[in-house]
């Protein structure tokens, strides 16, 4: 019963105004929940509350605070720092580290040890990178400068990087919005297939109806009256 991601947002917002309130999300493992709404309604802030990165979205604005709970496989996350949550993130910009090669970007994500504390050897970690490159249909491109990749290739590297970190849940923040329609249509099934394969709960934020992964699991967020989108 506790498996999957259970989010209950009583109130999310700054001291002065609430951005999101009374929101409950439940995502079983292997399912993809789509979170939709107009820009400024707080979609990305909901993701940030799950990932524990509210500090980075509220940069320059009023700091946002979460009242509520975030549970992943029965574990309460809301007091944990991001790096201990086991929640992966993919942004619309692939955000590949520009000073690392494609392979180094992927290697950066491969854990040095597993949950049982056994350390993997360098060769094992490299092998996982090569496998990921293969899955991303990018074999032989590991030594490339990420800035020489196409938009679709970058998006695939970004997803593989997030998955290599073995997250227990994955958040996709408008992962297709920077790509053209044809590329999106090709990339969508590839992404969905890969994340479903991992049997982890996934939350996808988008404002494009076509991005919906599972019509059974769609949550629409409405802009609150005094939300900053109107400013």
């Amino acid at each position, binding site marked *: 019963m506790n498996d999957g991601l259970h989010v209950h947002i009583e109130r999310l917002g700054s001291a002065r105004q609430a951005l999101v309130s009374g929101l409950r999300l439940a995502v079983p493992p292997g399912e993809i929940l789509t979170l939709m709404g107009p820009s400024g309604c707080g979609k990305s802030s909901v993701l*940030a509350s799950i*990932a*524990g*990165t509210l*500090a*980075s*979205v509220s*940069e*320059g604005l009023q700091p946002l605070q979460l009242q509520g*709970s975030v549970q992943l496989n029965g574990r*309460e996350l*809301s*007091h944990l*720092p*991001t*790096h*201990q*949550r*086991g*929640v*992966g*993130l993919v*942004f619309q*910009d692939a*955000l590949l*580290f*520009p*000073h690392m*090669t494609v392979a180094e970007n992927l290697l*950066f*994500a491969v*854990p040095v040890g597993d949950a049982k504390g056994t350390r993997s050897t360098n060769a094992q970690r490299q092998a996982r990178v090569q496998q990921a490159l293969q899955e991303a*249909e990018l074999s032989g*491109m590991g*030594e*490339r*400068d990420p800035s*020489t*990749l*196409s938009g*679709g*290739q970058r998006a*695939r590297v970004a997803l593989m*990087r*997030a998955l290599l*970190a073995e*997250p227990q849940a994955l*958040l996709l923040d408008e992962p297709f919005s920077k790509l053209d329609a044809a*590329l999106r249509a*090709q*990339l969508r099934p590839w992404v969905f297939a890969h994340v479903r394969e991992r049997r982890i709960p996934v939350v996808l934020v988008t404002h494009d109806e076509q991005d919906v992964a599972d019509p059974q699991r769609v949550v629409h967020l409405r802009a609150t009256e005094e939300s900053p989108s109107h400013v």
Partner: protein
Amino acid sequence: MYAMTRSVQAQRSGHVGAKAADLLSVKVLGPLLLATLAGLPIGAALWAVGAQMLDAAAWQALWADPQIGRAWGMTLWTGLASTALAWLTVAHVLASGFIRQQLGRWLSRLPALLATPHAAMAIGLVLWLSPSGWALRLVSPGLTGFDAPPPWFTTQDPSGLGLILSLWLKEVPFLLWVAATQMQREDLRRRWQAEYALAQTLGRTPAQAFAQIIWPQLAPRLRWPLLAVLAYGLTVVDMALIIGPATPPTLAVLAWQWLSDADPLTQSQGVAAAGWLTGTVLVGGVLMVVALKAFAAMRKFASRGSLPQSQATDRVGLLQQKTLKWVLHFCRRLPLQPNVMWTTILTTYAAVWFALTVGSVSGVWPFPNVWPELWTLNAWQQVASSAHTVWTTLGLGVASASVCLLWSVAWLELAPRRWQQALQPWFLLPLVLPSVLWVVGLYSLALHTRLEGQWLGLSLAHAVMVLPYVLLALVPAYQAVDPRQAALVASLGHGRWVYLWRVKWPLLQRAIASAWAVGFAVSVAQYLPTLYVGAGRFATVTTEAVALAAGAQRSLMSAYAALQMLLPIAAFALAAWLGRPRRFEKIAPMKATL
């Protein structure tokens, strides 16, 4: 169920409470400590000098001095003229470089210009412009008929033109460098290029697009640096000693002469003069901020397309816009290439370096000869035999630049953005207040802590002067960091240190390295603090070069001036090497598969 939720919440808030105490210590005490560390010496120095300024006799002596009026007039003339010229030049270079898409290439030459210290520049210009200088040698006796140097005041001229020229040459690269730290920020660069292109699709010419869209956004960001340029021009001592007028000198030079006098009353008269100079800078700064506010009004005008609230600011804004247009227009009308300004500056710098190099190996060199009769390495041998001067310079530079860099990185990592914004003006104070004021404050601070004439005290005094430059060099790079990158690294399961060491700092490597080099160059160029706080016990290449400028040992003076330039250039070269972008393996581009 309800009770259970409550208990979970209580547990959580208890946990949060314990964490909060931890966080408080790091998140508040850390930056608080850092702010005190840097802010306290600045405040204490100001306090010390302020206390000394409350001396009525000193002010009376100052007003009774027959030179004060003309000296102050000379200060205003040289300071304002050089600042205005530098500002217009920078506007022109940025506009023409941006429009021709060559700015990046032009600015890549900046480090060499920045690394040339003020004193070396002044000495190099003297080698060209003085009555026995190269300029006259090239045309003598052929055109002029001179067999001996004429009794002209082409340097140390009573109208201060030589000082204005050398200030202008030094301040333009500084302003360009600050502009470059903004324009080369990835986020701004992209946005401005897009807005610039957009403005042209709306029917603006490239020059109009730059004047109406880019410049109004850039100009306010140059507020502090421009204030620093104005303050520097109004208060410079070393350069004015070498190439500035002598009868009377500028007020800053007078203040310095009085401060170094043995008579206590004359000394306090010097303190009062430093105070008067500070007042001048502050008033000038306020006037300038008012002018720049007008730019902000103009920006609103440009971005919203509606009239700003106040008609008055609108008019000033339009006036500023017209001025820039006029500059652009004027420069287009000249029968010269648009990059004429930039070429002139580069050529002059090259000429100065050349003169210093040749001067340092010249022996006997009778007047109308273009080249020395005798070449000799005597001067360099003399430099080598007093190697401790070089070691002192290097030591002070490395120590103060490193301390300031460590402090700045720690500060920018730990301090909340609001603290940084609130305290930045305080940390930048040494940049805008006269160095004659700082040396008085720093010296009495050193006296109280018994650090006067000590290496530690001197390097700390250097650090106070270096810090604003290092901070100014680092802040734009820090502002450009994408906060999502930290979130991303954390989501991959890595802690803060992994983020800093493997992602953030490597990406900031270039900015960090060049901030260090800038700090080193600033330390090398320090003249007043070295003499005054060092109590005359420490000789650096700068104090030697300035001291020699008054004498007749051309080759030794040139050698020290060349060295004063070479050390920072070496630092910049090192920084460029350390901050070089990574070279990826060249692979033939593949067809994108997706």
